[in-house]
């Protein structure tokens, strides 16, 4: 009768994914109240419902209760099951929204995950699939989640608002996560990128590339931006274009930036040149922030540090994003882990902004879902 006596309670729909993901990993129950309770359209949105459905697909025995208006959610996690999963993601948010959470869960499943996600691959709001592919995958490799299985493949590209893209994500299962010491990001040795365009002139991509290069060439000559023009069935339902840039350092850190064109019929259209330039500037901003993990993947790195063995892990990050800060608080709630946060001023003037050294002792998490044979 003493088991599971209490659950964690939160308010509001923000940081929705964090809470559910951490709840699933820690096995704690979560109650989220007042979800858009003051809004004209209260309750959970379609994309959140879709996210819950995805969680239900990859787990076994999950209990979800939502009240009539959708303003209160109760979530009792089941065991992560994995296997082949196909999910139609809601077009309100891009696949990146779902993929970010799925990446956090994937290494701890019972069977290795093979997910097919359909929906919007690139939109201006969420980190795109290309970005996650370019940054999160190498990050996972540093934590010992590697091997043949780890792969993100963009089969079809679908821009907002229509969607119609398809992404294949597969991830092997691990029992434990390695502790890491990512204290030296190293210097950037090359910049790579993808300029994509669908249902517009293929010339758009080239225009983006030229404009982006014009800025980045000041720093480093080793730049290569692929142009990716998709046609026909693999081009989704809406027109659009965009650019993803990734800077790789000598120590294997990947910093990234991206920009996508505004969705059709939602605001002013952007010129490809402008987009290329501002994306290049975003990359410079990211470089200025620096750290061993780029700003979108901070929380992923912190999660894997938390779930590591009972050893000290260290990571140098750029300034913490609000999302990361909330993630840290959630980690404390769910795993009782606090990070030692030490701001570090780069000794050199020309090495970007202030950094933060994050240190923690892992909880000694072991994948209890994996079957013993």
């Amino acid at each position, binding site marked *: 009768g003493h088991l599971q006596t209490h659950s964690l309670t939160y308010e509001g729909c923000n940081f929705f994914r964090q809470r559910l993901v951490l709840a699933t990993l820690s*096995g704690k129950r979560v109650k989220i109240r007042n979800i858009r309770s003051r809004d004209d359209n209260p309750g959970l949105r379609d994309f959140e419902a879709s996210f819950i459905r995805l969680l239900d697909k990859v787990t076994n025995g999950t209990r979800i209760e939502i009240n009539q208006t959708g303003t209160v959610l109760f979530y009792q996690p089941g065991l992560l099951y994995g296997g082949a999963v196909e999910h139609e993601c809601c077009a309100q948010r891009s696949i990146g929204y779902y993929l970010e959470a799925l990446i956090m869960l994937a290494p701890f499943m019972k069977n290795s995950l093979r997910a097919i996600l359909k929906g919007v691959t690139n939109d201006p709001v969420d980190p795109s699939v290309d970005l996650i592919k370019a940054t999160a995958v190498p990050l996972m490799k540093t934590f010992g989640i590697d091997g043949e299985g780890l792969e993100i493949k963009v089969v079809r590209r679908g821009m907002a608002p229509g969607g119609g893209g398809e992404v294949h994500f597969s991830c092997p299962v691990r029992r434990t996560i390695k502790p890491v010491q990512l204290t030296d990001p190293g210097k950037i040795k090359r910049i790579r990128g993808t300029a994509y365009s669908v249902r517009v002139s293929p010339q758009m991509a080239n225009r983006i590339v030229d404009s982006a290069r014009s800025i980045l060439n000041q720093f480093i000559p080793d730049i290569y931006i692929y142009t990716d023009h998709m046609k026909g069935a693999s081009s989704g339902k809406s027109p659009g274009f965009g650019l993803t840039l990734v800077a790789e350092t000598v120590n294997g850190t990947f910093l990234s930036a991206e920009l996508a064109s505004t969705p059709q019929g939602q605001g002013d259209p952007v010129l490809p040149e402008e987009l290329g330039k501002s994306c290049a500037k975003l990359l410079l901003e990211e470089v200025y922030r620096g750290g061993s993990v780029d700003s979108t993947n901070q929380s992923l790195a912190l999660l894997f540090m938390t779930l590591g063995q009972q050893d000290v892990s260290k990571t140098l990050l750029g300034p913490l994003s609000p999302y990361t800060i909330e993630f840290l608080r959630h980690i404390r709630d769910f795993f009782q882990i606090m990070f030692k946060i030490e701001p570090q001023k780069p000794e050199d003037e020309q090495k970007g902004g202030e950094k933060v050294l994050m240190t923690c002792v892992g909880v000694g998490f072991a994948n209890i879902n994996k079957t013993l044979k």
Partner: protein
Amino acid sequence: MEGREQKRHQQKQSGPKAQRKKRRKQGEQGTELEKDERKRNPRAFGVHSAVRMTRTFHRTQDIKTKKHHIPLVDRTPLEPPPIVVVVTGPPKVGKSTLIRCLIKNYTRQKLSDICGPVTIVSGKKRRLTFIECNNDINTMIDLAKVADLVLMLIDASFGFEMETFEFLNICQVHGFPRVMGVLTHLDSFKNNKSLNKTKKRLKHRFWTEVYQGAKLFYLSGMVYGEYQTQEVKNLGRFISVMKFRPLMWQTSHPYIVADRMEDLTDPEAIRLDPKCDRTVSLYGYLRGTFLKNKGQIHIPGVGDFSVEDLSFLPDPCPLPELLKKRALNEKERLLYAPMAGVGGLVYDKDAVYIDMPGGHVKQQQEEMRPTTEMVQSLMGTHTTLDAKMAASKVSLFTGTAALASEEVQENSGEQGPVESRVWDPETRRERRKAVFMEEDEEDGSEGSDEELSDEEGEEVEEESEEGQEVEEDEEGDDESIRDKEEVRKEECRAAKEEAPPLSPLVEGGGARRAVTERPAFADSDDELEKSEREEGNGDEEEEMEEGEAEEKHEKGATVPPDSGHCSEEDTDDDSDEEEEEEEEEENEGDSEMDEQVNSEPPGKETAKTKTTCAAKEEEMDGAGEGEPGTDTPGALRWKESLAQKATEAHLKRQRAAPNLRKLVYGTVVVEEEEEEVVDEEDEELGGLFRVSRPEKSKKVRADATDCSRFQPDTSHDWDQEEMLASIRDCFVTGKWEGDKDATTLLKEDDELYGDFEDLETGEVHRAKPRQGDEAEDDDDDDDGGSGDDAENEEEEAPLVKFDDEEAQKNKRLEKKRRLKERFDAEYDDGDATYFDDLKEEMQKQAELNRTEFEGMDDESRVQYEGFRPGMYVRLEIPGLPCEFVTNFDPHYPIILGGLGASEGNIGYLQMRLKKHRWYNRILKTRDPLILSLGWRRFQTIPLYHIEDHNGRHRLLKYTPEHMHCGASIWGPITPQGTGFLAVQSVAGTQAKFRIAATGVVLDLDKSMTVVKKLKLIGYPYKIFKNTCFIQGMFNTVLEVAKFEGASIRTVSGIKGQIKKALRTPPGAFRATFEDRLLMSDIVFLRSWYPVLVPQLYNPVTSLLMPAGQKDMWTGMRTLGQIKHDLGIQNKPNQDSLYKPVLRQKRHFNPLHIPKELQKALPFKSKPKLRAAKGPAPRDLRRPAVVREPHERKVAALLSALSTIYAHKNKKAQAEQHAKHRDFLKQREKQEAEKQKRQREERKKVYRAMGQKEQKKLKSSLKGTSKDD
């Protein structure tokens, strides 16, 4: 030997022998001889067989790798917790005596009653906690899980008892701790021979159970009721040098063996409801791994609880500080056993307890620290609720009822060690002797029988004597208890009359209180503390804050910041910074100002705080967009004091650490205070784990978009040259750090190789003089450096001159080191294997783990790491059942086992299980079973199953007798690979061997897939050729539709398939078979039906049982037990009963063919209706032939002739046969010879060919070797 001097060996100095020796010696030195040997006898060293060579190589490699263990990170704490020594054995074997002797040996103190764990300092680096394990299987299971060392006492005069084996089996399942056997009662042997024989026999049996060569100690006779000092000393020495291997479960879970318990419940609440749930604080050394606050724990025998509060206390039994001296002095030989009433001064979170000297601890009290007196004098005035509870505790401990349980005799069976129940007159109890079949044969029954008969005679007398003694003892004890109680009552009364309860006068206590009140995150900066105090209750000021914020910030801008660095406002500001950054995106109007900010990075932060006030106000209004105009004047004013800002920057950076931490985590103390306030104000904001501090400003954000993107800082304009310059060095094209720069590395190389001359070109390279390098370095600095660097340089310049030589020396050393490193890298890495790398990595990690938080004070260290093992901690646990306190018995250990991430949940577990080979019954599916798994003991209902070849889990009714099977239960989630054991009941000791089964957890799931076979039966009602209509199997068309295509079978073995449902009758279907059915055939469909695992999880709450009945816990009864108890007999199914078989005689009717049909039939098939033939008529009968005599002669001759002819023919044929056989033999022989010949010829040819080939090969090899 010593007296007689032996003749020394005389070395030959000359002669042929000496010469030969000399020659050999020379040869060895030169290694010429060795080479010669290789040349002289190459075949001895050559490769004879590649296969053999690979095999030997594999073998050596195998042997090498077998020695490796998987390297693990060494996580043992610097100051490890005391080692848990569990003393176990059947009753009356001498456990308490041994503990008493060991304690006396280590601490020179006497402890009369071993009550609860006793911790002592045994050496400079080691502490021990002794726990006595009683005969209850619950205790045995619990203690086996926490033991580091088990002292297994065996009564040598009696032999092994079942308890010993049970304990060993429990240990085996839960990770084997160190086990040391101790043989006692050796003085009861009369002659030496039988003693030695017994020792040997017991030793070998012990070895088979533990491991070959396990240590077995012998304690011969007693002296004045104690073991011999020398033997105890030896044992103690063994214990203090013993090494332990880490056990999986123990190293991955935090746990505490509680050595002290206080009830903190409000006495008023108890008065109102004596059965109310209690809040209890438990104390003990933390072991295993880090324990986090607010974690979940399991108390075996009670249940799962969450820790309300966790704090560490000063070590009550600390290790000596100085390690240099050889032995401990008297003061350092500490003893701590609060449950036994020893320990003297006991610290708590906010008070100090003193145990008033009782009768038996007088000696101990006298040598307490000198502070005791002072504290004692103060004690009267100081009492808290805790103190009252502490006082009441004593009566609890002493009230231990004697464990007198009558044991029911039961007949023993066979198998395994046969248990023979022996009535022991001395102890007046029945002993469960474990007798092995071989032993019986060896021993015979001489000795034991004699002893028995002797003892029987004395039995009666002894009994009566002992009874009296016990009574006397009890009286004595009672008196002492009464004394103590009185003392305590007086104390309490005094305390009530005086001192207000919440103002402790004890200095130490007061200080501690202050410490706890201070924010837990503070890095023990005095400044910080002060600021917190200055702030006082921040609530009021907070309200003001919003109004005054702007003013304050202006002040902050002009005046250098004072001690109030970490005030709450700051945290507010910082948290707002982030939002502010987002907002600034919108404030594009004042880009000018932003640029200025960027140009001066050190001052940036302060500038931000400036803008924050405005931003915050905007937020409070709920509008995200603000007017930029309000910011400008503040910013301008800030610009005036630029110089000051620069100096402040340094300070700011220093205090940034706690700020950032506060920004993220808030402060614990403030948080708690506020939570209450908020709760009053607004119910919606309540909650257990909420960070209310940052939440406040975030109220608006609660419903914002959930997105991980970090919006860029709009203050950065990447068109600006300065901005671009600020990240110039992040690229490989930028400047490198000194130690990694290519030019410096090149220079180093130059230094390494120094001057050299290129012989081909005649060029001479010279190493550059060292001074030049430095100059260049400085130049580099100047290029990129600012004014600061220039100053530094000036300061450093004279220093360099002074320490020139020193520096040179250092440089040389450095160079040497680098050289060596490079050499190592080049030559050692070739040998380094994967294993070595792994090991090194682990070592590095261990080093890092140790050093990372080393310098930190415990208060803040605990926040990051959790409470580390070795700490003495106090846990506050609310909601414990009242029986835990009221039925408390210190003889039963209280273990607090920490639970992992999701180990608090319940789900389905799939395990591999094997019935224990010594358990004499097989287990039945759905019979409740008590499992010990992880920390827990619980009753559950397992389903046994076995995996079929296709992966299906088929339900079994009973466990197989000698085989593993699967078991599925509903129980607590426990990591895979955890071992468990099962017992049928924990009550009493009636059962033979109590451990019913053992196994391991394989898989966890929320749903189970155990199936059982279900046969659906149907009957044909219409039969065509191979098609058949079948009914009775299903009830509706829908059911049939589900099974379309399923294969069916008749009892006679004809296979078929369900084709389609028929409309009428419902449930009937058409099926086809491989042969024609009969109407009498029964058709069945084999299907699998999923079985649900019953959801019973019933923790064994043995600790809640009343004292003296703690080993009487019974849970759910098995069906058999219930039937037995209620006297219910099963009524067998009537159909299953055997009855005499009655076979009726079958009667066949004659075949009847209708007339019409007869007509139509062809003649052949027509029934032939003619009457049977009678005797032939006379006219048809043939006449007999009568031969003439001549005719007769001729016939006789003819027959004789034909006979002769036939005989001749036969003979000839036989001859022919024999001839042919001979011929065949001959031919075979020839053939064989031919074969042989051919084979030899072939062999010859091949040999020649081979030789040729070899020659060719040799010649080619020679050729290459010559080339080389």
